[in-house]
Each structure stands twice: as C-alpha cells, then as structure tokens.
C-alpha cells in the first residue's frame, strides 16, 4: 500500500474544491458544455448515452479495504449500487448526476482517491502488474516507480494539454501482466549485462483504429534518469505530435511517421539538455516515497500445508478453483488469489456494492487489508496464507467471485459497449454474456485451456480486441450490429496483433463463430497441452477461416 501524506491529501482536496467550483459554473450557465467538457474530462467525468460517467483511478491497481468500502459507498449513494472495473486499473460509475459529482469526489478524496487525469489529453492513470510486490518472477516492486512517475505527471503544467491522451505502464517481471507494448509509454525494469537494474523504454504502442505495438527506444535507462527521460518524451510529443486530426494525434502516429529511430534521436537530444537538472533522481526523495509503501509482516509458513491437500481431495470444486485461480507467491506459504468478475451471464468487470464490501472484509481477514485490480477486469487478494484457502474459497464462492475461469475462454475482457457508451457502434456486454452461457461447462473450458477473448464495441478498442487470442470488434453496417473476428493477438511479452479471419458476422452469429473457432482448435491442436494461441501461431489463420465460413 502507498499511504498518502499531508501533501498528497491536500492536493486531492484542492482538486475537489476546484471541481466543485467548475460544476457550479456549469450549472449556472457561466461555462458552456464545450468549455466544461475538458475540465470534467480532466477529472474523469464523461457524458455517456444515458448519464455522466465517473472514472476513478486505482493507481497501479492497489486498494485497501477502506478504499474498497468507499468505492462501495459511492456505488450505493451516488450510483445504482454497482461499479465497473476497466482494463486500465480504474473503476467507472455509469449513472452519476452532475450536481452530485463534487460530493462523490469528496467522498473518494477522503480515502485518497480521485478521478484526476483518468481522461482528457493528459497523462492517464499509471498502470502496472496487478501482482506487483508479490510475484515470484519480479525484479523489484514496479509500483514505487509508478508512484514516482504518477506524482511527477499529476497536474503537470506543461503536459496537461497534450495532442491526445497518454498512457504509461510499468512492468518488472519476465512475464508481462501489464500489457506493456500496447501503451504510449512503457517502462520495463530489467537487469543489464552488468547486473544493474534499469528500464527498457518502449514508446508508441496503442490500439484504436491504427494499432501499433510499442517500439524500444532505449534498451537500458538508468534509474536516476527515469523522470528526465519521461519528460523528454512528453516534451517531444507535446511539441511535434499531430494536432490536425484527432485520429492521428496519439504518440504512436508520431513515432510511426518520424520512424522510431528519428523519434528516439529527438528525445535523446532533449534528454541530454535536462538529464542532469532537477529531474535527476534524488535518492532521498525516492526513498521517502518507497517508505510509504507498506508491506505485510508475513508469518513463517511452509508451502503446501497438509490441510490444503486434504481440502483439495475432499472437494473437487475447491480443487478446480485452486488449480485455476491461485498463483504462486514470492513468500513461502502464501498465495495470490484471483477473484473472477466473470460469472456466467455477468457483465465483465462489474461488482455490486455488497460484493465490494464483502471482498473488503475478506481482504481484511485473509490478505493483510489489500486488494488488487488487474487489466483483465478481475480482482486479486495478494497475500493469502495457503492454509486459509479452503475457508476463503467458501466465502468467495458464496458471493459469486470464485468462478474457476481465470484466463479461460469465459474470462472475457469487454468494454461497456453500446449499452452505455456514446462512441460504441455495437453492444459488447451481451456478446460476452452469451459466450459465458455457451461455455458454462467447466470441463469444456478447462479442456480449451488458456484462451483470452477481448470484445470492443467500436474501433476505439477499449476492450483491446487486437490483442485478444480471439478478438471481437463491433462495427455498424447499414444500421445493424456486425462483428469482425480476429485470432492470434496477445498482450504479453510476445505481444502480437490478431489477424482478421474474414467478413464481419451479424450479432446473432458471434457466439456460434466462437464455438466454431474453439471446436476447430480442439481438432487442430497437436496435443492437449498446445494452447490455442500456439496452434494459431503454428498453422495460421486460414484453417479457422475455412471452418468459420464453410457454412456461412
């Protein structure tokens, strides 16, 4: 946990006061909607199809029980009793009234939370691995770096009116759980040949209508230079990013048009002019931030306690859940538990206020008061003693967050789509719900193995369809909802964009197509252990195209 100090709290409180004034001016008519728009956007407030939507940042995906209870309170008091976790470690409330927004924000501010820079053309919430600090394969905790960068870019006087939004992710493990390559800027901690830890800097990733994977502009950046390098990248982007066309304004287009090498050269020149100035890392200042990350005092425990084995033998449902939702922890005797927010027929990423309260209580009892939010729209309890797993599972199961489908075909990432969003061309959520019904049999989903489906309701790609093993993109054709299907995308350390399998299919056929693809995979895989994504890599798109379109 990062614990806010007086400085952090003051800034958030001042922000709420400013927003209260802006809302008052909007309500009085002093501000036009056009003038108000960028101000509300800078606080995470969108105007959607039916109401205002408030997006709240969960920096680097870490929440305390107190914060989660406050999210529940906001859901109950200001919304319709639920919240929606997004792909960027945010929570969204979709039914907030404009006049109540300042009070909702003040409630969030009371626990150090806010919607600052969760939208608008500024640096957005900085994301990282939801297993940060507990993953066995991690070099060091990336959240401290994420917090350092978060502070630096918060209300940055130079970079609050960039050409377009700017998303940063920080990673620190060999396995990328933060989708680094689809970010505008990604910082990956790693060791160089000399054993020093520094950052690989990747720039220009992003999905949307022109998807690009980020390119490495600096293979090894010393820690001391991280802020100056980020500043140099942002300045180069602010000065030279396109502003003539909103669809070409992201940094990925600048990197693409200039070429990664020329872009990197421009950044290097700028960086050399500032690297030894005020932004060179101050070890004492950094240590001060690091010291406000609180870590649990773990008990001395052994891995695989006997009572766990007994419980697994006694209950096959528990056994299947442990196999699926429990991951190794860096501390012996502990585990990381993923809470699936993808029950059969549910809306991916939605959680009711009652569930939030229950999860907060469970985190207090079983996970040192801490909850994590991942880009897959699931939650995690990051510090669970293995001997507590049977008891925890019973309680998670009772509140509906123990579906054993983590990383399986029904663990679908989806944007809100046309049910909420003014930009969408097509519905996303009902497609996801139908797929979870088709694949309700746990034997079947387990047999299919790791398989990620990502659904976006429009080309803006909030559901990251390009990097889904199966990607589903809603488009509009003659006033009807159609869906383009891609296969072979991935968002991990070997990030790849999916390939289109053929013409778009109508709404009613999407789940059938997914079933066809799954059936084709089972026939085509060389052995049961060959994952879907590896089969696609080996044989290409063609066999899937044939199977899907043979009868259509």
């Amino acid at each position: 946990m990062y614990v806010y100090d007086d400085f952090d709290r003051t800034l958030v409180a001042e922000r709420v006061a400013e927003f209260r004034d802006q809302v008052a001016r909007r309500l009085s008519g002093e501000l036009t909607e056009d003038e108000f728009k960028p101000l509300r956007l800078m606080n995470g407030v969108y105007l959607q199809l039916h109401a205002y939507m408030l997006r709240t940042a969960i920096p680097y995906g870490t929440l305390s029980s107190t914060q989660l209870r406050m999210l529940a309170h906001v859901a109950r008091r200001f919304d319709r009793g639920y919240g929606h976790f997004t792909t960027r470690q945010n929570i969204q409330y979709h039914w907030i009234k404009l006049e109540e927004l300042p009070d909702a924000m003040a409630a969030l501010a009371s626990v150090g939370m806010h919607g600052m820079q969760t939208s608008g053309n500024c640096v957005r919430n900085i994301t990282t691995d939801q297993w940060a600090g507990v993953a066995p394969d991690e070099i060091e905790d990336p959240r401290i770096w994420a917090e350092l960068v978060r502070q630096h870019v918060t209300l940055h006087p130079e970079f609050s009116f960039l050409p377009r939004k700017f998303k940063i992710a920080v990673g620190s493990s060999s396995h990328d759980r933060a989708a680094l390559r689809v970010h505008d800027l990604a910082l990956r901690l790693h060791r160089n040949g000399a054993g020093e830890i520094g950052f690989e800097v990747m720039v220009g990733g992003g999905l949307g209508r022109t998807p690009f994977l980020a390119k490495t502009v600096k293979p090894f950046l010393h820690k001391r230079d991280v802020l100056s390098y980020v500043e140099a990248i942002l300045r180069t982007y602010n000065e030279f990013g396109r502003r003539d066309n909103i669809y070409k304004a992201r940094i990925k287009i600048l990197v693409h048009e200039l070429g990664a090498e020329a872009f990197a050269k421009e950044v290097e020149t700028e960086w050399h002019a500032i690297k030894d100035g005020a932004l060179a890392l101050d070890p004492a200042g950094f240590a001060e931030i690091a010291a406000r990350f609180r870590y649990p005092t773990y008990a001395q425990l052994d891995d695989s306690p006997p009572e766990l084995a007994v419980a697994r033998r006694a209950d096959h449902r528990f056994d299947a859940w442990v196999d699926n939702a429990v991951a190794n922890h860096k501390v012996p005797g502990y585990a990381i538990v993923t809470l699936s927010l993808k029950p059969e027929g549910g809306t991916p990423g939605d959680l009711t206020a009652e569930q939030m309260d229950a999860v907060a209580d469970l985190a207090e009892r079983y996970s040192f008061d801490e909850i994590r939010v991942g880009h897959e729209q699931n939650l995690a309890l990051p510090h669970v003693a293995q001997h507590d797993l049977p008891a925890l599972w019973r309680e998670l199961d009772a509140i509906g967050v123990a579906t054993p489908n983590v990383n399986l075909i029904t663990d679908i990432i989806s944007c809100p789509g046309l049910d909420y969003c003014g930009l969408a061309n097509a519905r996303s959520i009902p497609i996801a719900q139908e797929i979870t019904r088709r694949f309700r049999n746990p034997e079947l989903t387990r047999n299919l193995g790791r398989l990620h489906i990502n659904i976006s309701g429009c080309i803006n790609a909030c559901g990251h369809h390009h990097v889904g093993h199966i990607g589903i993109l809603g488009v509009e054709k003659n006033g009807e909802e159609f869906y383009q299907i891609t296969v072979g995308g991935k968002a991990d350390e070997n990030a790849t964009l999916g390939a289109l399998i053929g013409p778009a299919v109508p709404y009613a056929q999407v789940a059938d197509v997914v079933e066809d693809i799954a059936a084709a995979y089972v026939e085509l895989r060389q052995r049961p252990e060959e994952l879907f994504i590896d089969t696609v890599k080996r044989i290409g798109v063609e066999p899937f195209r044939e199977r899907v379109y043979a009868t259509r």
Partner: protein
Amino acid sequence: MPLVKSGQIVEDRYVRVLDDAPIPEGVPVIVAGQRFLSDAADLVVRDAPIGVLWPNDRRVAELEPWLKDLSLIALAFPKFRDGRAYSQARLLRERYNYRGELRATGDVLRDQFQFLVRAGFDSFEVKKPADAQVFAKSVARYSVFYQPSADGRVPAIRRRLQGGSVAKTRERRDLPSGSASQIAMIAPRSVSEDTL
C-alpha cells in the same frame, strides 16, 4: 480583452503590428515572428521596447540570439486544448534564461492560469473579463505541486525531505489580492540552476 500582469488587470502598453505596416516610432510594439526574424537587427535598435508574437509550431530556439533584446514574447494558444506553448514557455525560461515579459495570448481561460504561471508566463491576455477578475484567486487554488517547473516552486518530493508542512503555503493564499507578496507569488521566481 483584459491584460493581467503581476496579478492585476493593467493597460496594454504594446501596439500590435502584425502585418507589414510601418512600425510607429517611440511606442512599444509587438510584431509577428517571421517579420521579427527578417528585420531583427533593425528592430532591436529602435527607441522603444520590441516584442514578438511567436507561433506555436516553430522552435523557440530560433529566437535565442535576440532574447536579450526582446522585452516581450507572446506565445499563442489558438485553442486552449493546444498546449504547445507551455513547452515553449518553459524552454524560454528554463533553458534559454529569457527574463522579459512572457505573455499568453489566444484562448486563455481561468482554468489554465495555474498551469500558465507554472510554465513561466507572467502576463495574460484573458479571453473573458470575468476570468481576469478572479485571476489571483485562481492561481492560489493549489498549494501543493509535484514537479519542478519554471515558477521555481519547490515540489512536494523536496518539501517532504525538508520536513516542510503544507500549512506554510496555505497562509499565503489568504493574503488580500494585489498585496505585494501576492504579486511576488504570481511573478516568476528567479530561475535557479536546478530547475533546468
């Protein structure tokens, strides 16, 4: 369009000559960037202050040879969403040590005042009169800043180490507008080496 300088609404003493018209004698003028560069050697030796309106899509480095002679640089915000001039301002203040008047022009609204001050601007052609009236209040809205910038304010990361508290800055916010210390707070600090 009211001009705010040193935290107060003042009269603009500059005359704009943004085309190729003859430049009046003896009065401060602002000329367009290209004209300034073409005639800089002559313009800087005339008998009154010279300013330039610099576009936001040209590098300010082009002005470097003339910075000591320019008494004003006006930067452009054609739309308030177009934030290129923030970078130009910081470069002028922090890299090129420009000490003259740095003026924000165009779509300059209340909710940007704080950012503009922090980027190094010290005069503002404010689009709406009502916004100009509340300038001092608007720039005093925040007392905590996370990053070093052209205004020389100490970022939170350093204040924490100095054992500083937030309250110290809060007091300053309550000063009557227009008082000497209020003005000092709004005017850019001298740019120390370590903010570069």
